[in-house]
């Protein structure tokens, strides 16, 4: 079981990415912060099980379960698309362009079917492998890979004009 110091390390290493994942699932930053807080409160109380093989995958699964619980009974709010990405360090002259590109990416990711959106977010921004994604969303590795590539194809079509 992890002590408070290791939970602090988990926070430093993973909290940002987990928050992005929660926002991508829920569309709402405030609700996502509550989910993140609940997961870490439980970690401080009970610690990380010693049998965990991949911390990141375990935490993603915890965030997913908590987010689904929070969403139970109410559908994802389609009118909310809070930002789940930061702008990269940039030349100030590029800022407007990057803000627009981020908006388009987030809107394209938000419009993906839920299963594909999750696979894309976990792969690209959480940097999970396909076996890890499969364990988070409880499907086979092939299915995880299939969802990811279908999601990526859909994104490519939506983003093509600026991407070329």
């Amino acid at each position: 079981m992890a002590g408070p110091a290791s939970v602090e390390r988990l926070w430093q290493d993973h909290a940002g990415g987990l928050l992005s994942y929660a926002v991508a699932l829920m569309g709402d930053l405030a609700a996502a912060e509550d989910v993140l807080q609940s997961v870490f409160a439980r970690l401080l109380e009970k610690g990380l099980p010693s049998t965990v093989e991949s911390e990141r995958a375990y935490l993603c699964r915890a965030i997913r379960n908590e987010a689904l619980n929070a969403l139970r009974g109410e559908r994802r709010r389609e009118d909310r698309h809070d930002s789940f990405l930061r702008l990269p360090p940039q030349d100030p002259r590029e800022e407007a362009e990057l803000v627009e590109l981020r908006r388009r990416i987030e809107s394209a990711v938000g419009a993906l079917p839920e299963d594909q959106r999750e696979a894309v977010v976990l792969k690209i921004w959480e940097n999970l492998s396909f076996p890890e994604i499969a364990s988070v969303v409880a499907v086979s590795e092939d299915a995880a890979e299939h969802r990811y590539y279908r999601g990526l194809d859909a994104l490519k079509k939506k983003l093509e004009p600026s991407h070329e």
Partner: protein
Amino acid sequence: MNDLERMLRRFPPLEAPDRVWNRLRSPRSSLPRRYFKEGIMVAAAAGLLAWLAFALVWTPGTTIPAAPGVQESDAWLDREPADSDVSSEERIVIEALLADLGGATGSRREAAEKLLEARLESAIPFLRKASKGNNPELRTSAASLVDEWEDRRRRMSLPKLLAEARKEAKTREEWKAVATRAVAGDATASAELRKIGWSAAPVVASAAADSDPSSQHRARILLRELLLPLLHRGHPAVTLLCRKKNEQEYKSSSYSFRYATQDAEAVKNEIDVVYNPCGQLHFTPYGGRETYLADAGKVALDDVKELPKQGWRRANCVLPVEGRVYVVEIRADGVSYTYKFEVRNPTAQSIELRWAGIGEPRTAPAIDPLRGKNGAFGSCIGKHPEY
């Protein structure tokens, strides 16, 4: 990684807000500052030991002129290593790590990635092949390690640093024999040269110049290690133009102490200081770094010989005062770098900094999560019409 994935990865995920952690953990932990004080003591002890070791090796009066009689070609320094340069033992290790990188999960895959990153110099030909292979996992991870290698090479040019070392290094006859053994693969000889430091780099280069490719490969790895401290040494005054003069671009308004260069294109996010129109020097303008600053007062730069024991504050910017010397600690990527600089002729158009490294780079405490990881500009109270 295809172009689309690369473009998506350009945008990093969010940073978790401090307030959530504050709600979880109260009162605040004092861990980072305590570790910081202990770090200074460890660095001071390590510095003393290094000085004693150097004093034992160095005997004044027995030196010979630095430059070899014939200027050999340094073209081999720039050569990309080939897989035939790598020893069979090293090859076995690299292949095992690549198998883990493409097939293992969780901590084992992360460990393989870290180990490959530590031996990029040898692993690069194998990583290039893997980045074009059929395994999508391996392809993605290998491509990002290849990017890292190319960044590293761009920042640290061996021929350029070696030329600097040749100008100043004093070489001794007996080092030549040691360098020949080191280049041939003798680990004890390499360890002996590491103790001497960058002064031994010219003899290593001479010993390797006409040798076989695998000896040159070993020499390149050793030279990279020996020459690294040159990037941290003192440098003549550098002039930073106010960023307004550069139409808000970094260009000559920025400087990287860590890479001793004003070439913002080359160092990218590793810029350490920027002279902004608000009249302040801004440190580490990109997120994920921390800067601490101590004002040593109006003293001569050379008189500041050690890190101040007190007066440190976490600072993203300082209003520079003519003649004052400041000591700055930059924590980036788990390493703590310390520099001193003297301010000269600060005007609305430009500023001059005379600077030098102070102390050796050492392991840094973790970035304090309670303070956030934003870059410097967001927290500046000066005038920034562009933001």
